[in-house]
């Protein structure tokens, strides 16, 4: 029993080290790593996330009129966030979904239909569609924007514009 346990730890350590050296190895291992045991330790490296991502939504009513774009907000930090930061999961999820979608767009191009069936796109569409509305709407559309603070100014760029989707 002890030999099996030690062997398992040794194998896990070797695979973890291999995954840090090669992105291809990491991707290959993660295909089979259903429990997320293989770590990726490249925190904020090599290229740190210096972009903010923004989800903006607009709706179309039965009268075909469009609403203005409105941003889905990040959850604000509290003064004790160094110890207690419940909003970070939502904020990190926004970042992860956008980064994931950016990878899909980068690999397939922005007009490839497969993007519309990707997990990040479906996640965003589901989230955006369920957002409470104060007005009657029949269809919705979202745009992903990125922004970067640099030398006191903010650079803003569009990342992706969705199609219009019917609302239930």
């Amino acid at each position, binding site marked *: 029993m*002890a030999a099996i346990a030690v062997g398992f*730890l040794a194998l896990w350590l070797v695979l973890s080290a291999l995954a840090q050296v090669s992105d291809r190895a990491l991707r290959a291992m993660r295909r089979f790593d259903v429990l997320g045991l293989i770590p990726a330790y490249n925190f904020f490296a090599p290229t740190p996330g210096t972009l903010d991502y923004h989800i903006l939504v607009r709706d179309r009513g039965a009268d075909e009129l469009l609403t203005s774009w409105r941003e889905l907000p990040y959850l604000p930090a509290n003064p004790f966030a160094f110890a207690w930061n419940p909003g*970070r999961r939502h904020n990190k999820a926004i970042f992860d979904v956008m980064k994931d979608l950016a990878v899909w767009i980068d690999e397939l191009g922005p007009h490839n239909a497969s993007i519309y069936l990707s997990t990040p796109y479906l996640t965003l569409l589901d989230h955006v569609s369920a957002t409470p509305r104060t007005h009657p709407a029949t269809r919705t559309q979202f745009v992903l924007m990125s922004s970067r603070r640099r030398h006191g100014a903010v650079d803003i760029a569009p990342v992706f514009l969705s199609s219009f989707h019917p609302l239930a």
Partner: protein
Amino acid sequence: MTEHQYLALSERLIALAVAVSCLEYLVRPGVLSDHGLAGWPVGRLSRPWKTGSWGWVLEAVMTSSRYRVVLAVRFGAALLLVLPWGGTVPRVLALGFVVVGAALAQVRSSYGHDGADQMCLVVGCALLIARVPTVADAALWFIALQACLAYTTAGLKKVASPVWRSGQALPGVLGTTIYGHASAYRILNGHPRVARLAGFSVMAMEAAFPLALIGLRPLTYLILACGLVFHLSTAVLMRLNTFFWAFVATYPAIFYVALAR
């Protein structure tokens, strides 16, 4: 201290990270709700096996109401591990639940997790395996080497990055909404030399971390102290609160491997 006392200390620290994390989810469950960004209805579609023949097993625990129960039980298990009492069997069961819960979180959705969750899973599994008789020493080595791998990988990848070497990385990160800090951003953005120095300090600490294992007591103390300061800084400036507990939970193992054997 015995090897089991080092393991117990590590267990308490990792349990603190898990307890805080679970409670944060329970207080703000929106992200896990059916239409949340880490919701199960879409998350289950991300891999074919999640809806395959084993799908019903996952459905039994992953729907948002049931998953909240899982989180509550995992919080209770983590709390039991933080406290100094409880017999061997309840503590092993609690640790098992903490580890299974960490794996379930990875299965449910890949969105919203961070490196602290990853380290909790790695250390938690190792602590569970350490319960096998005569494996404690190997488990402490495993935790120490995983910590060194984590820091060194992060450090060397930063060293290889022109953005980090130029000194633009820290002001860039501290200018963002989710990891940013207005005052720190202003200082580093206005003083590029300070930003470069801070960036190189982070790279040096992370890349040199394995030197903590070579057995020179002052060097081990120095590197672990730098690690503590680093994680306190990221907790205060970047609000990476559970990183502190998750990574400091590996320090007893580093101390054991370097100095106590």
